[in-house]
Each structure stands twice: as structure tokens, then as C-alpha cells.
């Protein structure tokens, strides 16, 4: 009996994908640093962070949204529309100091539209955000056409691509760390976080406990929109190019990273450290494989396999007990 018990608890711990994914990420980082030339350089670290910046940012609110049992596939299009509007306003000779808040506000509005359809009208979020995915991207093209706007002020673009002082730590890492900390604390150590989990695991019961699932989800969509808007601004500044097609297809990568991080697509389960690990794992694998001249195709396969394995692995472990 006691042997049986310890075995189940050990399996339970292993089955905790959140821990596993962090361990895997650390191992991959160590192996990559040891075996791939120039993976461990400071400059490469900077590139790596810049590459995973948009996914890392958007994955934060996405985690909360998915934990409530919903999804937001429109994030990449929100990013694109934010970028397009940024370009449009810049071309219209607006000061960048006004443009950036406008883009964040725009993100909030776009998120609120999603939130309205999902919570007020009660429509399934998968369908709604596939709709707004097309709608927002379309609007981005309406705003900016197929053109690109460049020449953003060097002070801003240099900050986004630059590092802290003479350290190899990129400035944008501050943004990621601060936001990750905020979302992590909110999800795991506040009443809001408790409500997020409760709504995801049993919406009706949450309502009977005095939580307003609609309101909660609405604000999560707004948060998702704001962060996607911010990601659009940073994207534009990083490449110094505002385009309507910026970030196209990013939504699937973000969802993949979040799921890889151990969040259940059905809601109610997941943790932010795992998601961060998922983002870092995907980003560093991509970086290391590219440095080793392994083609993009391999990365596609690796991403897909990892994604499936991330759910299959714990399931198999659980089943064996």
C-alpha cells in the first residue's frame, strides 16, 4: 500500500508538465550552449530575446484567456493592425509619443470587441476570434495597403534593438520580465487569478461563488488586445517597418507555446512559469537549429512533435499508474 502510494505521488510529480517543461528547457539551453558555436554569446542572446519578444508578450494574456477556457486567435492581427495604424499616423506626421498610446488604446478597443462578442453575446471564442483574425488583418491592409512605412525615430528603434548599458542584456528583456511578473502574480497569487482558474474549470460554479465570468473574460480580452497592440509597436520599432502583414501567422505559434507550457486548452489548468519555459524552449531551439544550419522545416516538425508530446507525455505517465 505504501509502495503504491509513493509511486503514484512520484508519477504525479513527473506528470506535472509544468516542472518537466522547465527542466527540458534548461537542458536544451545547456546542450545548445555547449554544442552549438556562438549560441552562448551575448550578441546571440540579444538576438534570441528579440526574436521571442512578440511571442513572449502575447503569450502572457493568452495564458490567462486560455485558462478561462476561451481562446484569442486574433492577437497576431491585432498586432498587425496596431503596426499599420502606427505607420499610418507616423506618415501623417503625428508625434510618436501620441502614436504609441493610441496603438495601445486601439489594442484595448480591438480586445474589447472580442470580449463583447464572447461575453455579452455569448458566442464561442474560437469562432469569434477567427472572425476578428480576418477582420483586423483586413483592416490593417485597408489602413496601410501593402506598403511599408519606415524611418521611425532612431531613439526609439535603437532602444528596442539596444542593450542595457554595455551589458549584453537587451532593453526589451525588461519589458518581458516586468510584464511576466505582473501576469504571473495576478494569475497565481491574487483573487483575480483564483477566479480565472475557477471560471475555466467550472463557469457556473464560479458564478454561484460570486464571480462574474463575463466581466473577467471581457477584461482579459482587453488585456490581450493591449499587449498585442504593444507587441505591434515593439515589432514596428524593432524592424523599423510598419506593415499590415506584420506578425501574420503568429497566433498559432503563441497558442503552441502556451500549450507546450502545460496549459490545458479546455481551461482551468496551467501555470505561467511553464508558459515562459515553453516560449524560451521554442525560441532557443529555433535559434540553435538555425545556427547549426538545420533548415526551417526541421523546426516545423520539432514544434509539432513537441506540442503533441507535451500533452501525450503526461497522459501516458498518468495512464500507467
Amino acid at each position, binding site marked *: 500500500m505504501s509502495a503504491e502510494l509513493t509511486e503514484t505521488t512520484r508519477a504525479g510529480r513527473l506528470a506535472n508538465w509544468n516542472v518537466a517543461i522547465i527542466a527540458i528547457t534548461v537542458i536544451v539551453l545547456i546542450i545548445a550552449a555547449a554544442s552549438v558555436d556562438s549560441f552562448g554569446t551575448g550578441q*546571440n542572446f540579444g538576438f534570441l530575446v528579440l526574436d521571442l519578444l512578440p511571442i513572449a508578450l502575447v503569450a502572457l494574456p493568452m495564458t490567462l484567456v486560455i485558462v478561462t477556457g476561451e481562446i484569442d486567435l486574433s492577437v497576431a492581427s491585432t498586432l498587425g493592425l496596431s503596426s499599420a495604424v502606427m505607420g499610418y499616423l507616423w506618415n501623417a506626421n503625428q508625434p*510618436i509619443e501620441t502614436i504609441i498610446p493610441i496603438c495601445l488604446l486601439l489594442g484595448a478597443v480591438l480586445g474589447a470587441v472580442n470580449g463583447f462578442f464572447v461575453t455579452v453575446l455569448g458566442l464561442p471564442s474560437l469562432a469569434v476570434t477567427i472572425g476578428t483574425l480576418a477582420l483586423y488583418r483586413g483592416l490593417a491592409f485597408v489602413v496601410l495597403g501593402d506598403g*511599408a512605412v519606415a524611418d521611425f525615430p*532612431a531613439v526609439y528603434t535603437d532602444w528596442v534593438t539596444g542593450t542595457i548599458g554595455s551589458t549584453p542584456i537587451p532593453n526589451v528583456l525588461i519589458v518581458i520580465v516586468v510584464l511576466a511578473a505582473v501576469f504571473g502574480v495576478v494569475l497565481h497569487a491574487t483573487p483575480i487569478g483564483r477566479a480565472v482558474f475557477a471560471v475555466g474549470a467550472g463557469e457556473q460554479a464560479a458564478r454561484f461563488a460570486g464571480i462574474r465570468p463575463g466581466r473577467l473574460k471581457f477584461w482579459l480580452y482587453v488585456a490581450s488586445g493591449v499587449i498585442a497592440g504593444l507587441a505591434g509597436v515593439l515589432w514596428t520599432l524593432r524592424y523599423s*517597418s510598419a506593415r499590415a502583414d506584420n506578425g501574420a501567422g503568429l497566433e498559432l505559434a503563441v497558442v503552441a507555446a502556451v500549450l507546450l507550457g502545460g496549459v490545458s486548452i479546455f481551461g482551468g489548468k496551467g501555470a505561467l512559469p511553464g508558459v515562459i519555459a515553453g516560449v524560451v524552449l521554442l525560441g532557443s531551439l529555433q535559434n540553435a537549429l538555425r545556427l547549426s544550419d538545420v533548415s*526551417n*522545416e526541421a523546426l516545423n516538425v520539432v514544434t509539432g512533435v513537441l506540442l503533441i508530446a507535451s500533452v501525450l507525455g503526461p497522459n501516458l505517465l498518468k495512464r500507467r499508474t
Partner: protein
Amino acid sequence: GTTKSSTEGQQSKAPENTAGKADPNAPLKEGLKIAYLPKQLNNPYTDVEVGGGKVAVEEIKGTYKLVGPNDASASSQVSYINTLIQQQQNVIVVAANDPNAVCPSLNQARKAGIKVVTFDSDASKTCRDAFINQATTQGIGESLVKMASELAGGSGEIAVLSATPNATNQNSWIEVMKTELAKPENAKLKLVKIAYGNDDDQKSFTEAQGLLQTYPNLKVIVSPTTVGIAAASRYVSSSSYKGKVAITGLGLPNQMRQYVKDGTVKKFALWNPADIGYLAAYAGAAMSSGQITGAEGEKFKAGKLGEYTVGADGEIVLGPPTEFTAENIDKFDF
């Protein structure tokens, strides 16, 4: 605040040219690492281009490398440039998906001593050392109008099926076409529409459909992009418009052979894409070896293609395009 006009002219400057003075007699270095970064991999036209590059790199005993994204997005190229910097390549030969988005990275590469040669689609002048131009913009624009006029019999409606609306090359050719069409001898030709197929086969196909539906009197579709011309030809060859509407533009002989043979296409033009990649390798090697710096008037030898002179703004022009017809098409295989 900081607006576009207040920052005009204060963009981050290109790094000072560190190569110093050109020495035309310096020998070509061996073992140069030359990497090709096309707009996207798995595009037949690009494959031919970089194929030529591979030949040249082998001729000069360098190390050839081909990397690139599967989608033609501006941002995905940046990660590859960063990787090439890490790998300490000597020359990066790149076709920019967005002239500005790649700039910061290319300049970072140049700071690290890497020579940057653009081909196919130029990056902003401040962030590359040389640009291999397939033909002069003027030459191509004129040639396209000439072919269209012949096919239309000197008068009637014509339409353009281009790549993306911000494709640098296509747009400059279309500009020249417009100037040409404004001339009195082309007064009877009417350009009714510029459609964009985004260099996507299916989209170009659908756009060609749309053109023919909307403009019943259309005589010629001019498609200055290999994807567009192939898609338009395929659509027309299988539709009731075959024989009524002529297709011309820039295309690859192998892709177009069928439509030239079945009469859908009478003539089209192109330079030899393999030569572009070939020339880029030599230009990059010459720069990396110190033979040239990219300044106007410098000369260098490009293997079987002979001697080239660097033009204004570091442009190196390959030569005039070739016209393909049913008579000569079988002589080409690319």
C-alpha cells in the same frame, strides 16, 4: 513630440566604410564564406538565381551557403541575417523582402566586417555595399510596353498583373511603363488596371480571372513577375479567353514553355537569373578581397560574364533582358 518630419535625415547612419581604398590588383581570396539569403526558399526563380551563385562560389573556391525563410515576410529574414553574423560569414548576398526592415541587421553585419550585396530586390542604399540590378529599370519598362503594344496591335486595353503593391522592382518598372504609355505613339493603348497577385500562384490565378471578367475588351495582360505570368497563362490557356487575350511579361522559360507551345503566349522576356547570383558572388568576393569598395567607376572581373563596372549608388547592372518566343525558347533551360 517626435514626428516624421522632425526626424527626417537623422536616421541611424551607415557605418563608415572600413575597407579603405580599393586595390584593383588584389588577388581574389580563397575560402570566402558567401551566404545567399533570398526572399524565400522554395521559389523556382530564386532557386535558379542562387544556383548561379553556387557555381560562382565554387569557381572562386569559397564556401557556399543558402539560408532563408519559407515565407516572404520581412521579419523572418532578420533572424537569418543575425544567424549569419554569428556564423561570421564573409559575404551576405540578400534579396530584401522589405528595404528597411533588414537595414539595422545588415548594418550590424557590415560593422562586423561582412560585405553585403543585394540582388533581385534592393535594400535601402544605406545598408548594403552593392546591388546587382538584373537590368536597368528603364530597359525593362520599355521592353514590357513594346511587347504589349505589339501583341495588342498598337491599340486597346491592357492590364498589369504585378506581384505585391510594394514590390520595389515591379513598381519602378510599372512607373516606367506609365511614362512610356503616356507617349504619343502609345496613345491608343489604355492601361485599365494594375492587379496584384502577391506572387502567390493561387491569388494571381484568381486575380487574372477577375481582370478578364471585369474588362471584357482586355487585349493584353502584362505580368512583370514569374509567378503572375505563369498563373495568368494557365488560367487563359484553359478558359474561353484563349486566343482572345494575350499574355506577356517576365517569365521563366521552363515554366512558360507549355503556354508558348500551345499559343497562349506569343512572347515574354527575362534576363538569365542564374547570372544574377553568379555576378553577386563575384562582386561580393571582389569586395571582400579589397578589389573594390562599391564606389562608382570601380571595375572587377566576374568569371565567364567578363568585366563589370560599378555604377552610381553601388549598382551593378547585369545587362539587357532576352525576349523568348516559340522559335528560341527551346534553347533555354532554367
